[in-house]
């Protein structure tokens, strides 16, 4: 197990390098720079600025510079300044030294803001939405799958699988506007757009107050974003549980006269839910990219909506920073999922 984790961590570093090279390379090949504006700056000024921000360096040096800023943690005794080039997402004072990490640089379009400013303002909201959607996916998906498997080939099974096929066939892009129209505009039960939490956040991302004022905004977008994933979970749970209840040890449990409830809960469910863990990796990815659409449809001021706007504005530092941050998050999440899976199921032997 220790060797497996060590090998996976090594692999993680390779993946992160490749991801950062591809991201940096593609974004760098796009014309325009931080100092190209509608009204051209004097040539001298651009020269000075390019030299100041290393834009004259060879490409590989610029890449190393970016990686150094974004990925390598820094320990320094120099206190942070207010410069736009000196804004780190993680900046903690430990005794006399500063621990500083992840500087994505300034935004091209919002002159006075850094990419990190945008992250700080918008990411917590996306995290709230994502967590809510994940809960929706689990709370709807797992019971549906369990019910369908236990009552296989009955009306309950067909119902569960119909909901699942509805979930996979109706993407956020369809379900979102539909919910907005039905519950927001026609019935007026819920506010069609907006978000109910404002900074400051508890622990950096949790809304400071949970209540109707938060949930009335969160219900529709969370369902729109989570339903597709709940369908995937339901199908997987059903398939896995159906396979488990045909195992020999379930027959043994039945033969020795255990109560049906105990057989299901203690023997079947526990083992059948292990494969469901593997879906969490792709699930996170779906939720992350889903926020781009969900937040735009529901007018939620999160990172997803900002990301879509930054694509229209061609704000490349924001595009690159967001993709890199999300990619790193997803790659690490996948690693954690794999390790948890190996831990939960001792039959899995990675070598």
């Amino acid at each position: 197990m220790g060797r497996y984790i060590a090998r996976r961590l090594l692999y993680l570093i390779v993946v992160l390098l490749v991801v950062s090279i591809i991201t940096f390379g593609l974004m760098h090949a796009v014309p325009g720079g931080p100092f190209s504006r509608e009204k051209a700056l004097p040539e001298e000024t651009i020269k000075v600025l390019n030299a100041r921000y290393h834009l004259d360096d060879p490409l590989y040096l610029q890449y190393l510079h970016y990686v150094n800023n974004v990925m390598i943690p820094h320990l320094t005794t120099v206190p942070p300044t207010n410069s736009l080039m000196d804004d780190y997402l993680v900046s903690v004072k430990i005794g006399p030294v500063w621990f500083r990490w992840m500087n994505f640089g300034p935004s091209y379009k919002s002159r006075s803001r850094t990419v990190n400013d945008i992250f700080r303002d918008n990411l917590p909201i996306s995290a709230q939405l994502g967590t809510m959607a994940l809960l929706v996916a689990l709370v709807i998906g797992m019971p549906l799958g369990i019910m369908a498997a236990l009552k296989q080939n009955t009306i309950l099974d067909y119902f569960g699988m119909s909901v699942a096929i509805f979930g996979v066939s109706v993407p956020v892009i369809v379900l979102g506007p539909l919910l907005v129209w039905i519950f927001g505009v026609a019935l007026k039960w819920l506010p069609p757009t907006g978000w109910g939490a404002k900074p400051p956040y508890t622990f950096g991302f949790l809304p400071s107050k949970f209540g109707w004022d938060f949930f009335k905004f969160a219900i529709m977008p969370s369902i729109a974003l989570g339903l597709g994933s709940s369908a995937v979970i339901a199908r997987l749970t059903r398939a896995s549980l159906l396979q488990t209840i045909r195992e020999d040890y379930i027959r043994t449990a039945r033969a020795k006269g255990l109560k049906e409830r105990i057989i299901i809960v203690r023997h079947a469910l526990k083992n059948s839910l292990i494969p469901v863990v593997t879906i969490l990796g792709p699930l996170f990815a779906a939720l992350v990219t889903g926020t781009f659409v969900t937040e735009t449809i529901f007018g939620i001021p999160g990172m997803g909506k900002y990301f879509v706007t930054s694509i229209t504005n061609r704000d490349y530092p924001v595009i690159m920073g967001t993709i890199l941050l999300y990619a790193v998050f997803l790659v690490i999440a996948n690693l954690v999922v794999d390790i948890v899976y190996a831990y939960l199921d001792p039959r899995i032997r990675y070598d």
Partner: protein
Amino acid sequence: MTQVKLESEKLGAGGAPLTQKRESLWQDAMRRLVRNRAAVVGGTIVILLILTALFAPYIAIKSYEVQVLSDQNKVPQWILSLFPTMKPYAQVTTDYPFGADYVGRDLFSRIVYGARVSLTVAFIGPLISLIIGVVYGSISGYFGGKVDNVMMRIVDVLYAFPSLLFIILLMAFFRGTISDIQPGTFAYAVNKIDESMGGLFFIFIGIGLTAWETMARLTRGQVLAAREKEYIEAARTIGATDLRIMFRHILPNIIGPLVVSETLAIPGYISTETFLSFIGLGVNPPTPSWGSMISEGSGLIRSYPNQTLFPALALAITMFAFNFLGDGLRDALDPRLRGTQ
């Protein structure tokens, strides 16, 4: 399991008693497919969609790109009874069956032509993915050893890059470099091709560069299992070349699961295109895509829901159809299910 013979071989060989007595895999699959009611409904809708896309100019009489600014947001009477909230302000017209959009284009025409974009993606996406993935996976699996190891590590690393983020990155790159390209270069020519296809060409490249990885892994696994079989040994003994073994003997035997996997992936390709068009990286305006129509309409959903909900409905029906058909095909072709009924 019987060895599947290619159609041409069957005809050419004259008397191949084995394949004549038993049902071929495809006949067997077809029989299962038509017994599956959901799959038949899905298949019928897919055929109707294909016809709609092919004959779009005859179905949609109005142009999808002509803007009649005086007709902005006008709706026919029946939409008012469907969405009564629109009654106080909506202007009624009889010219547009589904109404006009926010710049006065015919919504019905745009939805009909939008089927072209979605269906092209539904067929070209799997094709690209199959071609690249099968070739890559076959080489990796057939030669094995060091070649296999290196090729699969490359796939592993690329696979770890979340594919939708990768596509967004590629599309932002493609769409961003356009202004900087000099005429006469290769990139310029590619951009011209993309322009003439309304932006679809880059979508295919984006999908192609990400979707083949799954297919390559699947193919490799199938090839690994198939190459140990006796009939491959037999083919090798009589002196068949590697290329012949790969394409005449292994490929026909593993193609079933690969096709099923691609069919199941079709809704994913469709939603990728609508997703890209929604966030502004998909087709170029004025090419109508359901994704860009939903995106444009969603800002007006409170006042003119028809502009969002109709393209959304078209997309949902298409997704349902391909999901039903894909599920049906899987059940019909999955070798593990064969002979169980």
